[in-house]
């Protein structure tokens, strides 16, 4: 190791990378690209591969923050989606398909229910169709879950666009206040116990909720006073011309979005009123949004930068999605296994390779900086800790 850590260009390129928090945007882009890749196939083998890739990256690169433990919840949600789909097919399937596996007793619903009947013959095509569809949706949800587990939401809020600065600040306040509320509830309950006011039911609810709410609102006014004394809210004058252009852009853009949605929904309108109109409207609205966000210049404390690790993570995700898209153009048969006639799903090389490219962040991304275990605990600070 000739490179010293103080040299930024060499330190940034060393392998394995030094532990640090990756820009949350990189994780989100990677996860959304993986979700896009999952959306292009219903092949259960490929979908399971994507699931494995996401799981592997999450296990190798998540930190020890509370949100890093969320991945399991998304896996459970995915399982729920798949089960729900299959059960729905069994109950409301209506018996389409040739390969009948078993026949359940039918329950016809009354006339107002338009002749819907419950249960009846259960066909393999239906079950598999529900399973494939549900699995695709579940894997897309799990990809989003991977982003949730890997990206730090507080840092994500810091990099919100300027137009959403106030909204982002309110969310930061909410995330910071929430743990204090738990402490507030405990304090109120302790006080109630000391007064022997341990009744249950609605009175207890009122007895806890109202003091906690009062406490929270008082705290918010104190916070507002602190913010105002630090100069928050003294916005500069906004140029009237800029305001006018911003408003025009936003309203024109939304009109375009409405027209585009109408065009998409109505089969009789010309094609240019559909998706192109929708896209154009969105672009114009976003332009107004960006322009509106430039009214104030704000400095940032230690901003997250895009460095080699971020680029590697983003590119591996986009490469996976692009390769999957190419596959769907070249050889779509392997991506959508046939249900009529029933066939075994097959695994071909190109899509499998595409998905494996998405696993590269497990090695290329810098490992997270853990907060719990210090590498070398300083004896002085640990000795002081219990006393403090």
């Amino acid at each position, binding site marked *: 190791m000739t490179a010293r850590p103080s040299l930024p260009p060499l330190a940034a390129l060393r392998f394995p990378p030094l532990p640090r928090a990756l820009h949350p945007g990189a994780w989100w882009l990677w996860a959304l690209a993986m979700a896009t890749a999952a959306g292009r196939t219903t092949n259960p083998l490929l979908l399971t591969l994507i699931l494995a890739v996401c799981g592997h990256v999450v296990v190798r690169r998540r930190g020890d923050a509370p949100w890093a433990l969320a991945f399991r919840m998304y896996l459970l949600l995915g399982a729920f989606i798949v089960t729900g789909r299959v059960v729905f097919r069994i109950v409301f399937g209506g018996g389409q398909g040739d390969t009948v596996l078993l026949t359940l007793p039918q329950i016809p619903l009354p006339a107002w229910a338009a002749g819907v009947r419950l249960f009846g013959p259960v066909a393999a095509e239906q079950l598999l169709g529900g399973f494939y569809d549900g699995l695709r949706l579940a894997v897309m949800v799990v990809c989003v879950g991977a982003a949730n587990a890997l990206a730090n939401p507080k840092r994500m809020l810091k990099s919100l666009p300027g*137009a959403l600065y106030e909204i982002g600040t309110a969310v930061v306040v909410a995330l910071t206040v929430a743990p204090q509320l738990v402490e507030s509830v405990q304090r109120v309950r302790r006080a109630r116990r000391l007064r022997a006011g341990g009744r249950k039911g609605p009175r207890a609810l009122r007895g806890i909720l109202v003091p906690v709410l009062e406490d929270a609102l008082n705290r918010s006014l104190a916070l507002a006073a602190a913010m105002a004394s630090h100069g928050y809210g003294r916005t500069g004058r906004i140029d009237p011309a800029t305001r006018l252009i911003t408003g025009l852009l936003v309203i024109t853009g939304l009109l375009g979005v409405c027209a585009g949605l109408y065009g998409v929904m109505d089969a009789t309108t010309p094609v240019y009123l559909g998706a192109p109109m929708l896209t154009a409207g969105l672009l114009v609205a976003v332009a107004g949004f960006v322009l509106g966000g430039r009214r104030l210049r704000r400095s940032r404390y230690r901003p997250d930068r895009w460095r080699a690790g971020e680029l590697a993570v983003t590119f591996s995700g986009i490469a996976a999605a692009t390769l999957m898209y190419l596959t769907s153009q070249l050889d779509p048969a392997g991506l959508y296994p046939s249900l009529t006639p029933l066939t075994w799903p097959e695994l071909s090389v190109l899509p499998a390779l595409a998905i494996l490219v998405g696993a590269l962040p497990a090695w290329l991304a810098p490992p997270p900086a853990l907060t719990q275990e210090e590498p070398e605990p300083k004896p002085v600070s640990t000795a002081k800790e219990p006393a403090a």
Partner: protein
Amino acid sequence: MSAAGRRVSVLRIRPRTWVVLALASAAGLVMFFWPLFAPPRPEAVAHSADAPLIFVIVMPVVLAVVLAEMSSGGIDPKALALLGVLSAVNAGLRPLGAGTAGIETVFFLLVLAGRVFGPGFGFVLGALSLFASALLTAGVGPWLPFQMISSAWIGLGAGLLPRRVTGRAEIALLACYGVVAAYTFGLLMNMWFWPFTAGTDTQLSFDPTATVPENLHTFLIFTLTTSTFGWDTGRALTNLLAIVLVGPAVLAVLRRASRRAAFDAPVVFDPPRA
């Protein structure tokens, strides 16, 4: 209760913002109700598998534009701190009941706060509460922007209820609104989940070739059989009970905070003296 009739609007909605809000709401409603009038041509963009995915991208953009427009005049620090703290309380209330027979505690405070602080504040609070709660309990997903705009509409509606009603009548009005809001929220989210849950090939799926009333009929059966009696009724009952039992006390607390914050008082900065 002297402040009950006073009109407080913490986040003032200017005429331009109303236009943006109306357009965005129209677009939002279409993105919820598209299965009712999905076009029959298979090559259209609204292909049954692709349309929800397109809307999943469009909805966050529309929501971001509206929220930016709402805050474009600059939010008062007091309103901002109140927004943050009330969102945190809402987000903290949400897991209290989630999962147990549809007891949903997130809406009653939203309705009460929307009533006290006005439609603009209610809209932003509704969106932020669900966003903060999703970040805290890790529920971020494609459904989040749709939940956010639904609950934002609930907050907006609570702020738009008639002002003159006070006392017991006010509580009754808010309780009724809470029940309606609970069922509407359930209906909207069901509408959104419908294409995802039922797919396209069951008896309860939407049919692109059918007419709007036929699809609506199918949807109503779908929502009745899957959630109306469990989740939605549980949510409506929670709202009703919470507003009736703790509504008056919470309203008093919120109005006291509103008075102390003195949102109506004009802020004047003196020019620096030489």
